[in-house]
C-alpha cells in the first residue's frame, strides 16, 4: 500500500449515518482519544486495578482525620495469633477452601503483633502519594523548562539544555539517594517534591523537542503573523498539541516514581520510620522471608500492582494519543 492510500484508510471518517457517505463525521480530538483509550484492554484493566488499589488503601484505614472501615491501627502492636499467619481466605467452601472471609488479620501480623493489613495499606498510601507527587512535580518542571527552551531558543535554551546535560550525567538512583538521604527525615511528602525536582530531565528533552518542531508549523507562524503574544502562542497554540506527549510521560514518571521511592526506602535513603512505605516494609521484613513469607509478599504485590496498572494506563494513553497506532485488525 502506498503512503497515500494508507493515509486515506486510516484517516477515513468512521461509518457515518449519511447514506451518501459524503459527509465526514467530525470527532473532536478528545472524543477520538477517549474512544481509542477505552478500546485498549490493558489500559482499561489498569484503570480498574489502580482504582481498586487506591480505594482500598485510602478507605480502609482512613486518611488523616477521615476514619476508615478497618478497625485496627497500623501503628499499634497486639498479641500474635497463630504465628501471625494471614487469615485472608479467598477459596470458597464448596471448592474445599475455608470460605471467603477477611478474618482477624487478613495479611497476617508481624513479630510484635502489628496488623499487617493496616501497615500495608499505610505503606500503599504513602507510596502512591509519593509516586504521584514525583510524577506531577517532575512533569511540571520538565514541561516548563522544555517549553521555555524549545520556544525561546537562544541563550535560554543553551542554559537550560546545558543544565539538563549536567543532571543527566548523574544516574537517577544516585542523585535520588543523595536527595532522599538529605530530606527523608523531613517527611515523605517533602522528599517526594525534592525527588520530583531532580527527575525532570527526560520530560524537558521531550517537551523541548515537541516545541521545536511545533514552533515551525504553519499555524504558529500564522498566529505570530497576526501579532499574538508569546505567552498566548505557548499556552493556546503549542501546549495543547503537546498535551498527549506530556500526559503519557507523566504517567510513566509516576510508575517509575513508585519504583524509585520503594528502591530508596529499601536502601534506607527514602521514607523513614515511624512512617512507612511499601519499600520500607519489604526492607524491614526481608529477613523474615523464611519464617513469615507473607510479610514480604503483600507489599511487593502491591508495588507490582500499582506500577503495572499505571504502566498499562500509560500504554493505553500513548496509543490513544498517537493516531499512527490506530491499528489494522488481523
Amino acid at each position: 500500500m502506498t503512503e497515500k492510500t494508507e493515509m486515506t484508510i486510516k484517516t477515513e471518517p468512521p461509518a457515518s449515518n449519511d447514506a451518501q457517505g459524503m459527509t465526514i463525521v467530525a470527532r473532536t480530538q478528545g472524543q477520538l482519544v477517549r474512544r481509542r483509550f477505552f478500546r485498549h484492554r490493558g489500559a482499561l484493566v489498569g484503570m480498574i486495578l489502580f482504582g481498586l488499589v487506591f480505594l482500598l488503601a485510602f478507605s480502609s484505614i482512613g486518611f488523616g482525620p477521615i476514619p476508615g472501615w478497618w478497625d485496627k491501627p497500623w501503628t499499634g502492636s497486639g498479641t500474635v495469633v497463630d504465628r501471625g499467619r494471614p487469615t485472608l481466605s479467598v477459596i470458597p467452601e464448596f471448592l474445599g477452601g475455608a470460605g471467603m472471609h477477611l478474618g482477624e488479620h487478613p495479611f497476617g501480623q508481624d513479630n510484635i503483633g502489628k496488623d499487617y493489613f493496616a501497615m500495608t495499606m499505610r505503606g500503599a498510601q504513602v507510596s502512591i502519594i509519593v509516586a504521584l507527587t514525583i510524577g506531577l512535580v517532575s512533569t511540571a518542571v520538565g514541561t516548563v523548562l522544555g517549553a521555555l527552551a524549545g520556544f525561546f531558543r537562544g541563550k535560554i535554551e543553551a542554559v537550560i539544555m546545558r543544565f539538563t546535560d549536567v543532571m543527566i550525567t548523574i544516574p537517577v538512583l544516585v542523585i535520588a539517594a543523595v536527595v532522599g538521604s538529605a530530606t527523608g527525615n523531613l517527611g515523605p511528602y517533602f522528599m517526594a517534591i525534592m525527588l520530583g525536582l531532580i527527575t525532570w530531565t527526560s520530560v524537558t528533552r521531550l517537551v523541548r523537542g515537541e516545541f521545536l518542531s511545533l514552533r515551525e508549523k504553519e499555524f504558529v507562524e500564522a498566529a505570530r503573523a497576526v501579532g499574538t503574544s508569546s505567552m498566548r502562542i505557548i499556552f493556546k497554540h503549542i501546549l495543547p498539541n503537546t498535551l498527549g506527549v506530556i500526559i503519557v510521560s507523566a504517567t510513566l514518571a509516576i510508575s517509575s516514581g513508585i519504583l524509585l521511592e520503594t528502591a530508596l526506602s529499601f536502601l534506607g535513603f527514602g521514607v523513614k520510620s515511624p512512617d512507612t512505605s511499601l519499600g520500607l516494609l519489604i526492607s524491614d521484613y526481608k529477613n523474615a522471608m523464611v519464617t513469615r513469607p507473607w510479610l514480604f509478599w503483600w507489599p511487593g504485590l502491591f508495588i507490582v500492582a500499582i506500577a503495572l496498572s499505571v504502566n498499562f494506563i500509560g500504554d493505553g494513553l500513548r496509543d490513544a494519543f498517537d493516531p499512527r497506532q490506530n491499528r489494522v485488525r488481523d
Partner: protein
Amino acid sequence: MTSVHIAKRLSEAKRPGTTEVLKVENLQVSFPTDDGLVKAVRGVSYTVHEREVLGIVGESGSGKSVSSMAVMGLLPKSARISGAISYRGDDMLKMSERKRRSLRGRKIAMVFQDPMTALNPVHTVGDQLAEAVLAHELVPYKQAQARAKEMLDLVGIPQAAARLKSYPHEFSGGMRQRAMIAMAIINNPDVIIADEPTTALDVTVQAQILEKLLEVKDAVDAAVVLITHDLGVIAGMAHRVLVMYAGKPVEVGDVEPVFNTPRMPYTAGLLGSIPSLETSGGRLRPIKGTPPSLINLPTGCPFSPRCPMATEVCTTEEPVLEETDGGAHYAACHHWPKLAERADPTAIFRTNSEITP
C-alpha cells in the same frame, strides 16, 4: 502538467504485441480495520499485452495503488484478496509463496512513488542494485555489480562506476528515481509497474523520468502499468487507460477516445480539472465534494453524490462497465448516451465563477 514536453513520444516506441502478459480478473481487496471493512478494490479487471503501456488513473484512495500492490504481492497479511492475477496464464494468487517471489522483481518489477524513502539509507546504491540480481540468480557479487553499473549507465546516471559506491542520500531526487528504474529493469522484466513515479519529483525532472521510462521499457521489452492521478501524464505516455473511482474501474479504453469522448462524468470531470489554455477561457471546472468513504459506500453509483447528471437510478443501482461506442471503449455510467450528446462533456461541471455569481 500538460505542458510537460516528452521528447520521446509513445509513437516512437516499439508497438505492443498481442500476447497477454498480465491479466487481472475481478480483483477485490479489503482491509479489516477498527472502523469496519475497508473495501479498497471492488472488482478490477484488465489485461496488459507485451510492450503495452496501460495507464491507471484515479484520485488517492481510488484503489489504484492497492490493486498494483496486490499484483506485486506486497499487501499486508491482513488484506483479504480475491479474484485472479495471471502472469502468462498462471494465477499468481494460487502460486506457492516461493514461486511468487521468483516472479517478483524478476518478471514483474516495480518503481515506487517516493524515491526519497524507497531506497535503504544504510546500503550503497550499487549494493541495492546488485542485490536485486542476486535475489534471483547465483552469480559472483562482482558480476552483479557490473550489471548494476550497466543499468545505471542505461538510465543516464553519469559516472556510473563511481556512483555505485554512493549512498542514496548523496543522490538527488531525480537520480534516485533513475536508480529505482535501473533496479526495476535489472532483471529484464516483462512488466514494470510504475506507481506515481513522478509525483514526488520537481516538474522539470518529471518529463525526463517519464521519457527514460519509455526508453528503458523498449531496451528490455517490457510492458508498463503506469499509475497516476494526473491525466496529463497519461496523454503522451500510455496506449490504453483505465480510470478508477472508489475501488472500481469506471472507464476503460484507448487513450484517444477516452480523452476526446469521455463516456463517464468522472473522467469528464478529471479532464475539466486540468489547467489548460484552451478550455473555457482558462477557467477550471473542478469536481465538487470528496471521494466516498470506502467503508460505507453510497448505494448505487459511488460517484452519484458528486455527479451533476445523477438521477434517481444512479442512487439505487450501481452501473456496470459496458461497451459504449465500440472500439473497446467501456464505461460504467447509466447516462453515457446523454454525455455523448454533448459537444463538450467537461461542460457538465460548472466553473468556479459559475458557482459563486
